[in-house]
């Protein structure tokens, strides 16, 4: 730490060069923070999904018969089977859409790993036909509380000629990762199925839970093989893959992000290596003086490296700090309104900065270490 003034003075020998290089580093790491942040955020969304959830759908988006439930329960390594039928509804006015999902089969919501709900509420839901479990975010948005009786209007007509469905809110769930994104509205399949006119006794998809994630591939093969000739061929995949493929289907985010980051870091490394080498070429006499004063070769090496690391870390900290408020704006413009932004992004950035500093300073540092005092001073 006693060398810090020396390192600092060394950085500012050429102020213009130091400032411009520092600014380039900041810009590069601002880009890193935004891009890497988006990639990590998307991964976090996918990771929220439990590893052993498997989604079963028809290969041509037609509804699947509810009778498949019994056969699916018999597939080996399947722990539970939930059936889901989505129906479009709104609350009070057409713009206030509520994505309602009628669920059936194994619906012990308190055993799900991605949400948090008090056990009594989950059990109360299982006992009440007209019960509903709603997401905390949705409930707060609409002013709903436990015990409220809520009317939802569907676009499809009901069997009694009306469009209105009445539900009793018996449970409110929150996401277990701290994000305020609990938007779903779950009701009972039996109640829903009796009330609807079209597509009776069918579901959109089945969600299976395997006893262990290592059995996922086995279960997926078994399910598709069981139904391939049944009249309702299925396409089964792990729920994480389904979510991931959904993002990838539009744009391969990781590929683009990594390519841009690599290209810009490469150009930056070029710039800083050049700056370092120029700087030390012009200061060989100073380094020679330090050595003649008694500083060891390795100390001089360390001073050179320390200068590079200091410049990089200062620049990176500024850039990454700027990226943090920018990231939600960036993500919002791409359509991700509540992207998780973990601190690991900034920490990774700092690690990359240190690595880049070491790479840039490698050649000048080695030259500084090997510098012969006599030759350097004689040249001057």
């Amino acid at each position, binding site marked *: 730490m006693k060398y810090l003034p020396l390192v600092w003075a060394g950085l500012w020998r050429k102020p*213009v060069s130091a400032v411009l290089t520092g600014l380039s580093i900041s810009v590069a790491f*601002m880009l890193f923070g935004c891009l890497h942040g988006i990639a990590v955020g998307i991964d976090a969304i996918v990771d929220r999904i439990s590893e052993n959830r498997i989604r079963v759908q028809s290969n041509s*988006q037609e509804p699947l018969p509810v009778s498949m439930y019994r056969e699916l329960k018999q597939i080996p390594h399947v722990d539970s089977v939930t059936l889901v039928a989505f129906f479009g509804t709104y609350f009070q006015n057409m713009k206030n859409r509520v994505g309602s999902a009628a669920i059936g089969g194994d619906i012990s919501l308190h055993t799900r790993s991605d949400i948090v709900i008090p056990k009594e509420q989950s059990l109360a839901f299982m006992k009440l036909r007209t019960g509903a479990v709603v997401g905390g975010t949705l409930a707060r948005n609409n002013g709903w509380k436990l015990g409220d009786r809520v009317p939802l209007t569907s676009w499809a007509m009901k069997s009694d000629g009306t469009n209105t469905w009445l539900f009793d809110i018996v449970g409110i769930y929150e996401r277990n990762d701290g994000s305020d994104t609990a938007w779903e509205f779950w009701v009972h399949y039996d109640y829903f199925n009796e009330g609807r006119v079209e597509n009776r006794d069918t579901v959109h998809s089945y969600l299976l839970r395997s006893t262990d994630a290592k059995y996922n591939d086995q279960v997926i093969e078994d399910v598709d093989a069981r139904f391939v000739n049944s009249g309702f061929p299925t396409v089964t995949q792990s729920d994480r893959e389904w979510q991931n*493929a959904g993002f990838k289907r539009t744009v391969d985010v990781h590929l683009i992000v990594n390519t841009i980051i690599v290209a810009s870091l490469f150009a*930056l490394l*070029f710039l800083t290596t*050049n700056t370092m080498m120029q700087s030390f070429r012009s200061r060989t006499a100073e380094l020679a003086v330090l050595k003649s004063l008694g500083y060891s070769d390795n100390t001089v090496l360390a001073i050179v490296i320390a200068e590079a690391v200091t410049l990089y870390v200062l620049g990176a900290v500024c850039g990454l700090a700027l990226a943090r408020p920018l990231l939600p704006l960036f993500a919002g413009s791409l359509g991700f309104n509540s992207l998780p932004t973990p601190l690991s992004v900034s920490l990774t950035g700092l690690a990359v900065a240190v690595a880049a500093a070491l790479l840039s300073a490698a050649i000048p540092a080695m030259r500084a270490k090997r510098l012969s005092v006599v030759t350097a001073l004689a040249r001057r």
Partner: protein
Amino acid sequence: MLKQTRTLTALGLSSLTQRLGSSLVVVIGMAGVVGIFLAVLMMSTSLRHTVEGAADPKRAIVMSKNAESEGASFLQPAEVATIQNAPGIARSAEGVALASAETFATVGLRKRSDRTRGEIVIRGVPPIALVMRKEVKIVSGRAMEPGLHEMIVGRSVQREYEGLEVGAKVFLRGALWTVVGVFEADGSLRESEIWADATTLMSAFKRTSFNAVTVELSSPSAFTAFRDSLTSNPALTVEVLREITYLERQSKELSTLLSMIAYLVGAIMSLGAVFGAANSMYSAVSARSVEIATLRALGFGPASVVGAVMVEALLLAVVGAALGVLCVWLIMSGQTFDTRLSGGQVAAQLQLSSSIVVGGLSGACLIALLGGLFPALRAARQPIVAALREH
């Protein structure tokens, strides 16, 4: 002054190899900025090109009013009959109206590359569609027979997804469908689709209505009469668009998003490049400070010094930009960019167009000008005596 600038520039460039490091910084930095910018922008323009390439100026599409896309539009058979009798529709050699009433659905298929599921549009068309959409050509096998569970697949779908060779069978909605042919469509959107007979598809998917009617008009100017006759008909609630307008609308959101990313990332990287270029030019100028001072003492005006530094920066930037363009062209040209658009997966062929290359080069020049300005001014303003004395 021009002659002086030319001389000074030539002098500067001749000693460029002595400043290889900082010169390469400008070249590589510019290559990176231009390369990335063009790569992302290319995705946007290629997508628009692929989608709009399917349009013909003589064609129009009729959908339900206010439908966002074909998929949200529903036309009853009676409405379709009225549409098919509207004025302005061209006729085939046999006198049949060139009007194609179509219904589409999607089918889940597995990609060859990573075995994930993608959804492909399967479009039910009448026999007249193959006559009307002249750009669609069967390159292998034959067209489907009406009334049979047969389908033809676009070249792009067949390449990217499993199980679609001629003769292969796909189980769909209670029946085995046979692939009887493969078609190409000038590299446009249609190559990402599967086509089947409309009536057979509708009965398999239990549909009673069509999604849209696409017609070929006798001439592009017949559009207004055609549209007015349908929109003024009280029995119909339809919207009539030129095919190009409709397709532009479909690709607009995604291609705008990609363009926005290209400009945003490009702007940030350009800022870094400006700092990098400035850094390089400052070191170039200070390396030559004695030389420049001597030349100024000899009578070269300050304006020519500024000019010479700027020209050097510009040349380096243009070389860098050209390098970036070359890299992008080598790596990406000819690849496909697979994305999801209004219903199904679409594979767009990536192509570098001259307009975006010019855009990239102009951007590089702008960066060079901005970055080289202050170093150039400093070189011109440096007191001659002080510079000569410093050495």
